[in-house]
């Protein structure tokens, strides 16, 4: 790219408040009528051609949701949400299974190009069969499921994965092709009545990814889902279900972006992970929903329920999250450590700048013997941001030899932001051991001075120090994601210094 163009683009991206994913795709969309009622639930179910049991399941969730109260214990403030003033189904009008690039809506193609997904992958993303199975540039391939508003528009590398017996597809597709698996596991980790937002999701979820890794299989590539909210006045309610059968291993990544708008949009997802004996799941998230402008106007409300059941002996689930986007984040990826010797991990970086609010953390339930958990949380507050770590470590009476280590560090940049830590530790087992430590501080003057002295600008210096502060978490990310995440941290903090 010529230097001039690059400069212009850089200037533009700064002018836009640094959020370069904030464009809107103008594409023909199909909507369900606005509002939320039983008919909408039926409409979604019918649209997806779902079996009767799933419709019943959704209706039960909807009935439960109507009796539930929106939670108010999190340290976040937002005006009441009108659940009737949104579309619960929005999908681009598209012919099923385009065979070549020409058949795919060019607007969709452009969207992926603009989102920075490499051209090679872009062809794959749009669902062209046979393309990109062996990438020419020698990079490790990543299989991608692309979710655009309410539907999955494409899943790549399906053929390659099927050879290994791996199922990777949109959950609506799994309902059609693998109903028994879906029926067995759906809601088994996050039941319909788990919480207000999970119940809402259970009633109206539209798409998301489904992954099944058979016994003894090590998934040959990273699996990834890219979530994009595009349409106005919509909410995104995706549901992801990952099952790792005995002795299998999988690494899964998710990313998300949304256009810049003055209105707030709701994202209420549910993610369920099941790990059987000796299975291992690594789940990484780079959450980059539109955070709203500097005055706190607009942005995504991100109310997400993520939970993993380590059902098998020696099973392992590792959550890694980099939370830079969203006006409000309400998210507690958890592990239920049922199997003896199972392991749960949670690595998190959460950044709040301008008027962003984040209330995030994890829950570790130690049930089986010798279960282990590690929690490393790094919170960064800048501008008027409020950042809360909220977590629970519960050790049951039978979890002999269980072990937990928790570390929560907060960094404050500027004197108008807040950093809060609310851990709960409940230990009922004598031979178990829990350790928790938390610190809060700001960037030390001497660190800044040292960097400035070596010719770095203040902003660069802060970026470097923040990256160092987050290092323990970032190193848990798959490599390409880690590079992306580092850049994201820098962008998120733009304008917070000086």
């Amino acid at each position, binding site marked *: 790219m010529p230097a001039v163009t690059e400069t212009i683009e850089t200037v533009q991206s700064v002018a836009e408040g640094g959020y370069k994913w904030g464009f809107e795709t103008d594409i023909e969309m199909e909507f369900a009528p606005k509002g939320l009622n039983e008919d909408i639930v039926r409409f979604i179910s019918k649209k997806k051609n779902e079996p009767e049991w799933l419709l019943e399941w959704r209706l039960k969730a909807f009935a439960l949701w109507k009796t539930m109260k929106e939670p108010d*214990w999190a340290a976040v403030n937002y005006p009441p949400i009108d659940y009737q003033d949104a579309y619960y189904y929005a999908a681009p009008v598209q012919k099923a299974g385009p065979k070549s690039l020409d058949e795919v809506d060019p607007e969709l193609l452009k969207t992926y190009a603009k989102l920075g997904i490499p051209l090679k992958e872009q062809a794959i993303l749009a669902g062209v069969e046979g393309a990109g199975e062996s990438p020419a540039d020698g990079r490790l391939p990543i299989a991608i499921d692309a979710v655009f508003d309410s539907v999955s528009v494409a899943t790549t590398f399906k053929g390659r994965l099927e050879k290994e017996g791996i199922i990777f597809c949109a959950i609506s597709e799994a309902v059609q092709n693998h109903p028994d698996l879906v029926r067995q596991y759906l809601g088994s980790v996050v039941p319909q009545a788990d919480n207000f937002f999970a119940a809402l999701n259970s009633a109206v979820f539209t798409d998301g990814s489904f992954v099944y890794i058979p016994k003894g299989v090590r998934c040959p590539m990273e699996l990834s889902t890219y979530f994009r909210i595009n349409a106005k006045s919509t909410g995104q309610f995706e549901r992801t279900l990952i099952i790792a059968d005995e002795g299998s291993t999988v690494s899964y990544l998710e990313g998300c972006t949304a256009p810049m708008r003055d209105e707030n949009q709701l994202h209420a997802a549910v993610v369920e992970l099941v790990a059987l004996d000796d299975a291992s799941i690594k789940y990484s998230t780079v959450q980059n929903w539109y955070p709203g402008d500097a005055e706190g106007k607009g942005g995504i409300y991100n109310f997400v329920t993520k939970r993993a059941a380590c059902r098998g002996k020696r099973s392992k689930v590792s959550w890694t999250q980099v939370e830079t986007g969203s006006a409000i984040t309400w998210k507690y990826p958890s592990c239920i450590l049922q199997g003896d010797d199972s392991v749960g991990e949670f690595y998190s970086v959460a950044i709040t700048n301008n008027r962003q609010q984040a209330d995030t953390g994890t829950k570790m339930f130690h049930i089986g013997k010798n279960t282990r958990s590690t929690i490393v949380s790094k919170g960064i507050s800048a501008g008027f941001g409020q950042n809360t770590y909220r977590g629970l470590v519960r050790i049951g*009476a039978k979890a002999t030899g269980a072990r937990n280590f928790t570390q929560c560090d*907060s960094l*404050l*940049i*500027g*004197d*108008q*932001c*807040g*950093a*809060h*830590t*609310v*851990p*709960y*530790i*409940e*230990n*009922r*087992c*004598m*031979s*178990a*051991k*829990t*350790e*928790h*430590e*938390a*610190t*809060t*501080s*700001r960037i030390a003057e001497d660190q800044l001075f040292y960097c400035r002295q070596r010719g770095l600008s203040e902003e660069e210096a802060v970026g470097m120090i923040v990256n160092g502060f987050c290092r323990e978490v970032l190193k848990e990310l798959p490599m390409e994601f880690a590079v992306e995440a580092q850049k994201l941290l820098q962008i998120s903090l733009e304008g917070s210094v000086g």
Partner: protein
Amino acid sequence: MNAMSNNAEAFLRRAEALATPAWAGALRRQGLDALAKSGLPTRRAEAYKYTDLSPIARAEFGAAPAALARPALPAPRGRARLVFVDGLLRADLSTLPPRPLSDAAAVLGTVENSAVTPVAALNAALAEDGMFLDIPAGEQAGLIELVSIVTEAAGPIAFHPRHVLRLGQGASVTLLETCQGPDGVAYLHNPVFEVVVGEGATCAHTRIQQEGGSAYFLSSVHARIAAGGTYDNFTLNAGAKLARNEIHAALEGPKAACHMNGAQLVGDGRHADSTTFLHHAAPDCASRQTYKTVLAGRSRGVFQGKILVSQAAQRTDGYQMNQALLLSEDAEMDAKPQLEIYADDVKCSHGATVGALDEAQLFYLRSRGIPEKEARAMLVQAFLTEAVDGVADETCRAALDEAVMGWWREMAA
């Protein structure tokens, strides 16, 4: 809320029958309003998630007997003392001339806020007596004892003393508070302290809670600390079937300091809760907290500690540590340390650990010929030392050591 659904109904009825001393008027109205509105907190209330007050709401408490008891008193330790028997201040047994609470009108109800602290609201609604200790500016008052004794004859009484402690500029005092009562009597002791520490004043407050094994102990200490002042609190929670000890302190002037340390010794069938709330409201203040809990038999320990740093409180230095030792398979520890920070130039940290005695340490001692029982005692003592070391006054320290040893002997027997 209608009267039927209010779990503090029995207390409200009792308040109606009470004569109101002149000093208590406004306070009582405040307390009654709060109590009538919200009752006693249930476990649905976040601050009472781990401590269930329903046995207290259900219990039937009687009034103190008309005849004044003359119990045997522990040997005096300080320069002077104030003695409460069955909840009433006894001038005849005290060696310090008591001052009436009506003199404390400027302080009463201004340090605590009944609307947010339900156990203080209960006290406000029912307080009949209390002490007022006023240390004028510049006076070094030395060691003063506050003794509370419940007699067997009193039966299951409920008493709610309201204590006011005021230190003028540059004054100092060491207050040693002891609470004792008979085992097997389900009485309720619900003391509230309002403490005002003046500029540059120093208050060291050591509390030894050894209430009877069937008793309920619901206590709250509320302190305001002015510039350069220091408030040191050490609380030993060793008695009562259900003990909740709340400490609320606000650092209101620059360079003020607050230390809150404590030990909880929780035997079979007991529940002990230490809840602290520390508000850094001014710049350049420091706070230190160390709490240790030892749990034996079927018991439950709770620690909740919150540090709030306001935006004005730049250059705050806050530290909090809570550790628990589980000596039995049936013990449970719940901890909730909490930081809420709105200032950026701060250094705040907290730590929490829960675990059993270290087998390697035990092995080390035994390999040197120390019998297992003694080795355990030694390790528990060592575990508590870090917290107890915060008590500088030798007399208080000796009293604490004695109480800890007493508990351990009872445990080992």
